[in-house]
């Protein structure tokens, strides 16, 4: 078995080597012409060129422009972006304040049914008899309650609690349930009056489908209480064109969603408007590398700080610092379960009858497989367990209220551990985890794994091994200085080569943002854009699995993805994406070649141009149709 596997992997290596040679000899040593270079660096270091950008890069010189992007602190930020971000308050709040202000559901939305309280107020023994007892035991327990309490308990009883009970009790339960439902309904109505009790038909129309001015006038005419009631009844949906009102509506209906919604808006606004494009591309890359899923409980509240405090400060810094920041961040501790991982139960100093948590391997494994060494990086199941033991006690102090990193010595496994051949002596605490971060960030597999992944993002799906090796050498020499690794890559022959030219397929995020940028669209709201990206298969912050989204093109070449792109291009060019204003009048009376060149920054491929020219003979070639066709073309899907 083992020998067979070895033979297979050797065969696979030979095949790979063959493919690589075929590429390398032809193309990765063939330098791009000067004209192509400016387009290429914009395609790779930004979310797509805006009109005029290619000229700017040419004027500045490709090398100098790259150097600027590597030092974002020297680039003046776009005031349009700064104005947009100013409105997003949660981006600047410390974690405890986010928890404090947005962590709890809005007041009045949760009405605890009195029946549930009554059931919970019973003694442990009574509850256990009602839940697990025989028919006899359940009936006796119910009979022992006073009638008012019994009615309430019956209203809360799940079906299995009533199973087999006599008819009169069943009926009493049904009646009690119905009475309580009506009572709750009334209470809800009082707290959240329906729209038609608050507004006239005309006002409802104005609130739902009126113009921006109508909506503003209407809401400014309400006193604060009524304004809140109406907001609560309407929800955020009607305010796609009024971000301030939508924000208000979200605060009263779904404050927890607001936090992640502002983070998405932050991401899209920065991708679309920031002058520090490389930084944004890298934040996206590393957020995906250290993926955290917004659908896992508290993480939707933690993600804002994760991106701001654990990822963004380090994208040009040292890998080790970013790795440590992610390891300690509540978002990661919660996502990969480390916050509750403690010394294995058999080693617990507590008596056996005290139930306490034990070891959880989740973070230990993904830390090596996905964050550092890579799956073939040379670790074993024993290493997974040792790393998990080293991180026991790395937890979150008060999930709901403060959500801060805490080392809990009581949960830490104090025995000796061997991690990848390194001995971590017994009797230590937090230092075990710190040592593991150190071991992993200096491991040669990590240098290779990170370098290859960066090269896949910036150079080609199958990057030349020689380039990866040189990047890994820089990584090792500079103690994981990511800016230096990027520099090695951008200065390489391979990066500015024909082998890399137009080989990357845009991800959904890249496709959507590059289209918005190419049209110089004015974006007042990003909710609809985020939805489009999700429909294309890449919901922002929404990847459930810790792998993150694919870094290569295969995942996005399929029918669903292609149709999604075509339909997005149609909507965008037709001005049908809410919150995105496009002005394509510059394409009025222009022929297909000029429209395509305007959007692609180069001549379209012959097949694209021929199809458009032939196709529009019998049709009216409106700027919107031409824009749709170019943005749907194979040419626009590449970068």
């Amino acid at each position, binding site marked *: 078995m083992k020998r*067979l*596997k070895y033979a*297979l*992997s050797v065969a*696979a290596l030979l095949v790979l080597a063959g493919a690589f040679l075929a590429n390398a000899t032809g193309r990765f040593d063939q330098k791009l012409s000067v004209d192509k270079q400016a387009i290429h660096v914009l395609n790779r270091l930004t979310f797509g060129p805006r009109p005029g950008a290619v000229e700017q890069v040419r004027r500045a010189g490709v090398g100098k422009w790259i150097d600027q992007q590597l030092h974002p602190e020297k680039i003046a930020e776009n005031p349009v972006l700064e104005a947009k971000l100013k409105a997003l308050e949660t981006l600047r709040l410390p974690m405890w304040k986010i928890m404090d202000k947005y962590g709890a559901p809005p007041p009045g939305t949760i009405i605890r049914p009195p029946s549930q309280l009554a059931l919970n107020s019973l003694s442990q023994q009574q509850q256990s008899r009602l*839940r*697990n007892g025989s028919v006899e035991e359940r009936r006796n327990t119910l009979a022992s309650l006073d009638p008012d309490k019994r009615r309430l308990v019956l209203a809360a009883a799940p079906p*299995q609690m009533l199973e087999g009970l006599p008819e009169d009790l069943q009926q009493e339960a049904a009646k009690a349930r119905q009475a309580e439902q009506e009572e709750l309904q009334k209470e809800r109505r009082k707290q959240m009056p329906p729209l038609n009790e608050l507004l006239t038909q005309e006002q409802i129309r104005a609130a739902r489908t009126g113009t921006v001015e109508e909506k503003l006038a209407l809401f400014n005419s309400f006193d604060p209480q009524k304004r809140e009631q109406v907001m609560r009844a309407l929800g955020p949906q009607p305010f796609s064109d009024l971000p301030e009102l939508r924000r208000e509506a979200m605060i009263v209906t779904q404050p927890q969603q607001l936090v992640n919604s502002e983070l998405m808006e932050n991401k899209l606004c920065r991708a679309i408007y920031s002058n520090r494009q490389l930084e944004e591309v890298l934040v996206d890359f590393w957020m995906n590398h250290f993926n955290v899923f917004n659908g896992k409980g508290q993480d939707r509240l933690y993600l804002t700080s994760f991106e701001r405090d654990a990822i963004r400060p380090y994208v040009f810094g040292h890998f080790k610092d970013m790795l440590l920041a992610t390891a300690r961040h509540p978002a990661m501790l919660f996502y*990969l*379960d480390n916050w*509750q*991982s*403690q010394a294995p*139960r058999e080693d617990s100093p507590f008596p056996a009858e005290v139930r306490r*948590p*034990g*070891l*959880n*391997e*989740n973070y230990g*494994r993904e830390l090596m*497989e996905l964050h550092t060494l890579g*799956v073939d990086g040379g670790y074993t*199941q024993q290493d*997974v367990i040792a790393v998990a033991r080293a991180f026991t006690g790395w937890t979150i102090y008060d999930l709901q209220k403060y959500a801060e990193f805490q080392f809990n010595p009581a949960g830490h496994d104090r025995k000796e551990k061997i991690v990848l051949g390194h001995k971590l002596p017994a009797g230590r605490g937090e230092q075990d985890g710190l040592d593991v971060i150190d071991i992993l960030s200096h491991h040669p597999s990590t240098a290779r794994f990170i370098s290859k992944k960066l090269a896949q993002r910036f150079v080609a799906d199958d990057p030349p091994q020689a380039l990866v090796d040189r990047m890994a050498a820089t990584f090792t020499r500079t103690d994981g200085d990511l800016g230096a690794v990027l520099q090695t890559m951008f200065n390489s022959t391979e990066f500015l080569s024909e082998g890399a030219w137009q080989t990357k397929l845009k991800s959904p995020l890249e496709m959507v943002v590059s289209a918005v940028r190419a049209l110089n669209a004015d974006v007042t709201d990003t909710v609809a854009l985020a939805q489009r990206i999700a*429909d*294309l*298969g890449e919901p922002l912050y929404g990847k459930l*699995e810790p*792998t993150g989204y694919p870094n290569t093109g*295969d*995942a*996005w*070449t*399929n*029918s*669903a*993805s*292609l*149709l*999604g792109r*075509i*339909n997005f291009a*149609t*909507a965008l060019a037709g001005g049908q994406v809410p919150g995105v204003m496009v002005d394509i009048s510059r394409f009025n009376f222009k022929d297909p070649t000029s429209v395509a060149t305007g959007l692609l920054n180069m001549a379209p*491929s012959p*097949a*694209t141009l021929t*199809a*458009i020219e*032939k*196709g*529009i003979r019998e049709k009216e070639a409106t700027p919107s*149709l031409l824009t*749709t*066709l170019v943005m*749907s*073309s*194979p040419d626009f899907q*590449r970068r």
Partner: protein
Amino acid sequence: MLTRRYFLRSSAIALAGIGTAPSWLLRAAAQGSNKPKILVVVFQRGAADGLNIMVPFFEKLYYAMRPTIAMPEPGKDNGAIDLDGRFGLHPSLQQLKPLWDSGQLAIVEAAGSPDPSRSHFDAQDYMESGTPGRTGADGWLNRALPGAGSGASPLRAIAMGTQLPRTLRGSREAVAVNGLEQFQVRNPNAASILESMYATTADTKLMSSGKETFEAVKIIESINRIPYTPANGAQYPGNDFGRGLQQIARLIKADVGVEAAFADIGGWDHHSNEAPQLSNLLQPYGNSLAAFARDMGDRMEDIVLVTMSEFGRTAREDGNAGTDHGHGNVMMVLGGPVRGGKVYGRWPGLEPEQLYEKRDLAVTTDFRDVLAELVSRHLGQKTEPVFPGYKSGEPFGLLKT
């Protein structure tokens, strides 16, 4: 025969929608009631906990190793649903019980990959490639279809979702469908122009996916014109998986040449607090499978559905009332041709020396044993190209002869 009448009716509609009849449809029509055999593959991504899905309630060790998350014995509160006195379904899978009783559902215990990887992503790639230990360029289900060529339907192989899974990638046509309603070109003026653009582009990767797309769009357009109500009162849950299976049912019933279909469902990686999460996931999962079988009705005679997950989970619960990455798992095989109502495979036991690396349920049935039997006996294809280098043993006899 009812099915034949249905076939002709829907084919006529499909023909009307397309204009000229494509060759695959004429060929299908000529076959009449001799319908193609269909294989539906369901992938549970994230390593589902087979030991709590098919509960070995006869094992004392099962209860010893899982003090807080074991499913109670049949008859107890929230107990497993007894199947054969040894194994029981998780109570959330109650809707699958009638399929077991009617002999449509078979279970294969301790199935999985011989490869030892506990990486979700490697293990999924290996399983989807059909080559344990190695990620291939294409998927086993794609290779299991007769060779590409004229006369094949553009919808012969369909996957639900925004991505084409590795299982279905390869030289045979395969399309990803993220909702039938979305599967259209919304700009009628652009459609034909883009079709010819993608047909002639030098970008070979996009050309092939473009070709498949535009052909499939026309067929799906005609299907979309007919409103769909699931048959026999079937009710699909409203999650993506339920919607996906409903769309597979709809496409199969439209007789547009579906030979293979794929749907996946994620969220099985329960490292902590497993019990409520697993229940919440299994309920819509089981209900979706049951709704599919009910909806397909007689057509289940031509269909085999098989489920898999990249590996199982630790036999012992971990320190947080969850389970970590393990090895052996359970597969389900569902369909009219299935010799169901039986648990297949050799149970390896849960004693420490019986466990894989002293921690996981061992694999006694290579997942390819199950799939090879379906490929050869249901699809009528040779298994050697589908699972290269693999010699299948004596077939289980999962399918009726």
